[in-house]
């Protein structure tokens, strides 16, 4: 059981980060306002978690302008996808062990 706990990724312990990654796993990219709407959290909270995930290189950020408005969108990187899948597998194994 111990090595399963090692697979639990500390980066995803926050619910917000888990949420961000869940969304970016099934969407090619998503912009800031849409993420905020899905997760129902404040700008500051979302921004700080996005920055943390970006620092880990789990997500990539692209900035562009739509008309005159700046638009920032986020996408999961390959490293991020791999880390998140491993985290999910570890979660599932943990649950199935303690469920027995």
């Amino acid at each position: 059981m111990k090595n399963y706990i090692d697979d639990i990724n500390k980066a995803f312990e926050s619910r917000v980060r888990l949420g961000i990654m869940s969304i970016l796993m099934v969407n090619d990219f998503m912009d800031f306002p849409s993420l905020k709407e899905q997760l129902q959290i404040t700008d500051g909270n979302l921004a700080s978690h996005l920055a943390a995930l970006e620092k880990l290189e789990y997500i990539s950020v692209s900035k562009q302008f739509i008309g005159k408005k700046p638009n920032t969108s986020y996408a999961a990187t390959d490293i991020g996808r791999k880390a998140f899948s491993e985290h999910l597998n570890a979660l599932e194994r943990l649950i199935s062990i303690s469920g027995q």
Partner: protein
Amino acid sequence: MDKNQEHLEAIRDIRTLMERSSRFLPLSGLSGILIGVWALVCTAIAYSLLGISIQDPGYHTLLLENGQLSTSKFPLLLADFMVVLIIALSTGMFMAMRKAKKMNLPVWDATARRMLTNLAIPLVAGGLYCLILLYRGEISLIAPATLLFYGLALLNASKYTINEMRFLGILEISTGLLGTLFADFGLLFWALGFGILHIVYGILIYYKYEK
């Protein structure tokens, strides 16, 4: 045990977010039923405008007079279909807004835009194709062509909404192919595809998600 509960909740959150953020969910079964009924009413009006009963083949020959589009019957028939199209679209939108409110979901977000874009591309192509058929005088192929392109549109959009739409799409395509093969009965196949299939689909969705 507490930790376990936390993990379970985390997984539930992940599932909901994955589904909610990538698919447009507030599609209403009742609107499927209503749209089907409008289509049947539309077909009934079309048959009475043409003055034939549903067993009579070759409805499209009545729309031509000496190789030209009939100026008396064709505009009425076109108006019939256009009015029903507008009513059907409004019904779909109104019911989706109602259901979104009930489900506490936004009705106009990235998922809605993505589903509509994917629906619109084959539909616009189909609309243009029907105009070309009309221009070339291939009246009998128009009704089944609307089924074919509508089915392709549903199939295309189904990746971004409830899975059941995929099956409806495949059935619409099949109906469109049969309607092309038996073009004399094109209106009947049109009623089957847009009427009966929508009603059956609507009832299934209603019982699965709304009851």
